[in-house]
């Protein structure tokens, strides 16, 4: 039967090229828009280079520190002391890494030109959490880190900008913040879409002059943020419990300060987060819901337009439907037929739409992605890279297919059903 519907759909396309063309175009635009949405949301949770462990990477960026007498309060990251005493020794994580400096522009003067890069001060564990692919050299080691060696790891693109060469940059030196750093590794430039794992250059945080700075008032707060790689969800829960335990012990022993435990912002990267609790919860309840709501809104208007087209198309096909009815087709059968035929048109539109989506994503990637990755991107006017793995994702493709079905139902069901309700005699008699 499906083969038959397909045949009929092709016949209808041939018979009325203008209608079919417009219909396919309309569906294509609708599917393109929701596929773009899907890609954007997918990329905020998908494992993409170098964040290939994304679903097992967790972030602890800030805590709320309250003075017990209620006088003051800090919401911030952690000090070097906290990182060492509280976090590096955590048992329920495969890797613990601390970092700061994300969001601060790294200025480099080279050949009398000023460059600004997106960099990060990190520890050697950074490279155990994110799988940077090195095309030359290697990351700085634990020993380099402990020895405070002024080494820098940079992306191929960064190297090209600074030295005009990629692997040739190894061993060269750059001046940042008054110090000379030696290039020790060149990695493949990640896309800014990779979010938290994105960096153009990485240096050991022990080379930063004030890296051990702590505040007199509260020794524990500072600029460090933490990343954890865990085995699985169970270990993530255990990790959370372990951190709560540490905070509880601190709260019980410190005379002046306590950490707000009910606001422990430990987030999975695959549920990309901002720092506002409500927003985070919304996100955590699923990017899925966000996607569904967005899709519905994006499909609604095109569906209404297409539904008008189908309505007039059904009028043109009234005689056919009348004839089929008089030879024994029930309304259900005909409805099924119309829906299938139409789905075939919609899917053709969908395929065009997916292509259109790729074209738009490649052509307007800055514009599309800056909206969702604004924070990091505004620093340096970074380019957005899109790789095929990002937009040829099977999950996105399946979603687009589902959107086709939804669009088809939203646009065809009501007009088809209404048209088929007319009595047979009327359908046969309408002279057209």
């Amino acid at each position: 039967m499906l083969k038959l519907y397909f045949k009929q759909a092709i016949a209808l396309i041939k018979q009325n090229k203008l209608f079919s063309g417009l219909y396919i175009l309309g569906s294509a635009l609708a599917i393109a828009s929701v596929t773009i949405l899907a890609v954007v949301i997918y990329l905020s949770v998908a494992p993409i280079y170098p964040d290939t462990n994304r679903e097992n990477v967790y972030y602890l960026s800030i805590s709320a520190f309250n003075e017990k007498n209620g006088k003051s309060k800090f919401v911030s990251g952690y000090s070097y002391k906290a990182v060492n005493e509280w976090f590096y020794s955590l048992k329920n994580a495969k890797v613990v890494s601390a970092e700061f400096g994300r969001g601060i522009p790294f200025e480099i003067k080279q050949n009398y030109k000023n460059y600004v890069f997106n960099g990060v001060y990190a520890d050697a564990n950074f490279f155990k959490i994110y799988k940077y692919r090195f095309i030359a050299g290697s990351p700085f080691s634990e020993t380099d880190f402990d020895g405070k060696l002024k080494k820098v790891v940079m992306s191929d693109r960064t190297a090209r900008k600074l030295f005009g060469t990629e692997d040739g940059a190894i061993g060269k030196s750059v001046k940042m913040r008054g110090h000379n750093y030696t290039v020790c590794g060149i990695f493949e430039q990640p896309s800014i879409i990779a979010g938290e794992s994105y960096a153009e250059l990485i240096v050991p945080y022990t080379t930063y002059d004030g890296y051990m700075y702590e505040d007199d008032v509260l020794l524990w707060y500072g600029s460090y943020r933490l990343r954890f790689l865990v085995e699985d969800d169970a270990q993530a829960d255990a990790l959370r419990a372990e951190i709560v335990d540490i905070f509880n012990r601190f709260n019980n022993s410190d005379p002046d300060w306590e950490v707000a435990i009910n606001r422990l912002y430990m987030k999975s990267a695959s549920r990309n987060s901002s720092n506002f609790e409500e927003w985070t919860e919304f996100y955590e309840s699923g990017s899925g819901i966000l996607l569904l709501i967005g899709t519905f809104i994006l499909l609604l208007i095109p569906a209404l337009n297409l539904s008008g087209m189908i309505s007039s198309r059904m009028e043109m096909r009234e005689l056919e439907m009348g004839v089929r009815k008089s030879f024994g087709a029930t309304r259900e059968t005909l409805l099924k037929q119309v829906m299938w035929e139409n789905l075939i048109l919609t899917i053709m539109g969908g395929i065009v739409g997916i292509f259109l989506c790729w074209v738009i994503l490649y052509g307007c990637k800055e514009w599309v992605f800056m909206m969702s990755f604004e924070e990091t991107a505004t620093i340096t006017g970074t380019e957005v890279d899109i790789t095929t793995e990002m937009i040829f994702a099977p999950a996105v493709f399946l979603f687009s297919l589902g959107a086709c079905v939804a669009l088809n139902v939203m646009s065809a069901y009501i007009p088809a059903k209404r048209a088929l309700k007319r009595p047979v005699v009327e359908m046969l008699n309408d002279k057209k």
Partner: protein
Amino acid sequence: MEVIKLTGIDKIYRTKEIETQALENVNIEVRKGEFVSIMGPSGCGKSTLLNIIGMLDLPTTGSVEICGKRAENMKENELARFRNEKLGFVFQSFHLINSLNVLDNVMVPLLYRNMSSSERNRRVKDVLEKVGLSHRMKHMPSQLSGGQCQRVAIARAIVGNPEIILADEPCGNLDSKMGAEIMEILSELNKKDGRTVVMVTHNEEQARQTDRIIRFFDGRQVM
């Protein structure tokens, strides 16, 4: 045995302003295997009658019994099935589906039956042979002459082996030679296959070839 039994049929069309009595107290019985023609001037209610016999429409009052089944007692699905199995229509103006070729047009009634596609194809080819159109299977309706279209319509009406064939002016749009060909096919279906045929016609000569003529005037049966 009567396969068609109409008792006290009235059909009134009501629109906002006017009321048209298309049929008035019509009583008709047709026996199995009979070839009946219906005659009367334009607008006297012939098509309306055929629609009612074909269960495409219900009378305003009166009872319709076809092959022992009462139309008013049947649900939509039952009706559809009944039409599919027992009735074959040949419409006044062919009513072929323009987007389908000859083969697919004729196949329409079989689509709504449980049947393998090879069986469908076999049956369609058989009837197309019967009406002399085997060599036109892949043609579209727009590529056929009027007589050929009507033969396709007849093939479609008989492909499902219905007991009753309802033909509304099957020769109306054709010249006399083609008309004669169509009459030939219909009488053969009646004589050889024992089908009951009810045919509307304006042509006295064709009507005389049938077993019985029912005449209408202004919605009433004249004899």
